[in-house]
């Protein structure tokens, strides 16, 4: 509702208001995409902000501003990772449908009740595990599981089919599970000592 009013203001001012509204979420996403490197995250965010500002007139539906800003952030990041290989960042090879189904079939049920572990400790382990994921998997997990975008929205942001996002989510969650279970095990050992 407010966004429609904002659009009637000067475009530059309207952009700043929209950007400010989503800045914290964009910042933490940039931080995770850059594996916790604050300077890189700020650089990525600034690059994305300037691109968004330049193309703000292309945002036709103000209610989709959040997804639009995240799309620019995500694609800017992926372009950086893919181009020139100037960051030593792993990228993933996506699974085809058969391989994805085979991987799904191999899933063993989880046992560790990770809820028992201190949230703070688990948070640190999760961040470490997230940062070790290849860029595409990390992006998919963060966008869907943390920022709450749908799989379809994340697919649009990463410019891949929905099935690819599903496969990336599965593989990302599979790796995170290992970290969460290890943290839970360790916490139990400490508690029982």
């Amino acid at each position, binding site marked *: 509702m407010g966004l429609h009013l904002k659009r009637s203001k000067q475009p*530059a001012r309207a*952009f*700043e208001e929209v*950007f*400010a509204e989503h*800045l*914290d979420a*964009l*910042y*933490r996403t940039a*931080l995770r995409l850059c594996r916790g490197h604050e300077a890189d995250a*700020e650089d990525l*965010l*600034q690059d994305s*902000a*300037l691109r968004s*500002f*330049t193309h703000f007139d292309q945002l036709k539906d103000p209610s989709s501003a959040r997804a639009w800003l995240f799309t620019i952030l995500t694609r800017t990041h992926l372009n950086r990772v893919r181009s020139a290989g100037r960051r030593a960042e792993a990228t993933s090879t996506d699974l085809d*449908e058969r391989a*994805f*189904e*085979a*991987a*799904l*079939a191999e*899933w063993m*049920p*989880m046992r560790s009740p*990770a*809820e028992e572990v201190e*949230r703070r400790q*688990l*948070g640190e382990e*999760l*961040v470490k595990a*997230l940062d070790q994921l290849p860029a595409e998997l990390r992006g998919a*997990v*963060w966008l*869907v*599981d*943390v920022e*709450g975008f*749908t*799989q*379809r929205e994340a697919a649009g942001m990463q410019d891949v089919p*929905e099935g690819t996002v*599903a496969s990336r*989510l*599965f593989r990302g*969650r599979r790796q*995170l*599970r290992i970290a*969460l279970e290890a943290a839970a095990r360790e916490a139990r050992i400490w508690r029982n000592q």
Partner: protein
Amino acid sequence: MTMQCGRARRLLWPDVGPREATAEVLGAREHASGCEACQSFLHDMLRIQGQVGHIAPRPTAPVEVRDRLFQAIARARTATKAPAPAARLRQILIAGIAALLALSLSLLGYLAVRGGSGESNTLGSIVEDRLRAEKGAGLVSSDSLQVAQWLAERLPFAVQVPLFPEARLTGARLLVANHQSGAVVEYQVQGRGLSYYVLSGGGVGLQQDVRLSAGNGYRVASWHDAGLTHALVGILPGSKLRELARYCIHQMMV
């Protein structure tokens, strides 16, 4: 059986919205209702998703990052702003007034040479004050964006409003000194006033040497870059002023 589980899990994969109830999807549902491993899988996916969403740290953007981002946007806005016809007309008018005032200043300068330097200073100050009033008295604001925009609308060069730790931005005003137009951005640091001056005229290229000087109880840290003179003026220790100047230069380079 193994592939059947894989196919069922693929078809029932969570977070894809409503599914069309095709024969295959119905078959997958039937399979999952009798397969403990598939039920566990679907439960685990939602559980991991919930845990990740719950425990992931959500830091907020630090103030200095926020400020630097908005400064970058403000610079982009100033750089891309094409003058509208009305703005062009205003620019022509301002240029005309400036030319008229420059002529008046020259005339006053000539009269001053003839009439003595004391009178020259007084008349020069009067004209400069008039010129200052012509451009608007000042702005009281703690919003760096608003200050930058206000200055951008009144000066022929862009002024980056620096942000200092422990300093509170209080506003800005215009300055005309020695026939040069400029900006003064005002801050409060530890209960004392701090002024940041930017004047047209200065060395070419970035000269990071900060010079410290003092007068009438005030300390001044000054430096030049690309045709502008910068100065920080306040009743602060020289080391503190130099530190703030370095901070300022760093922000400009970023």
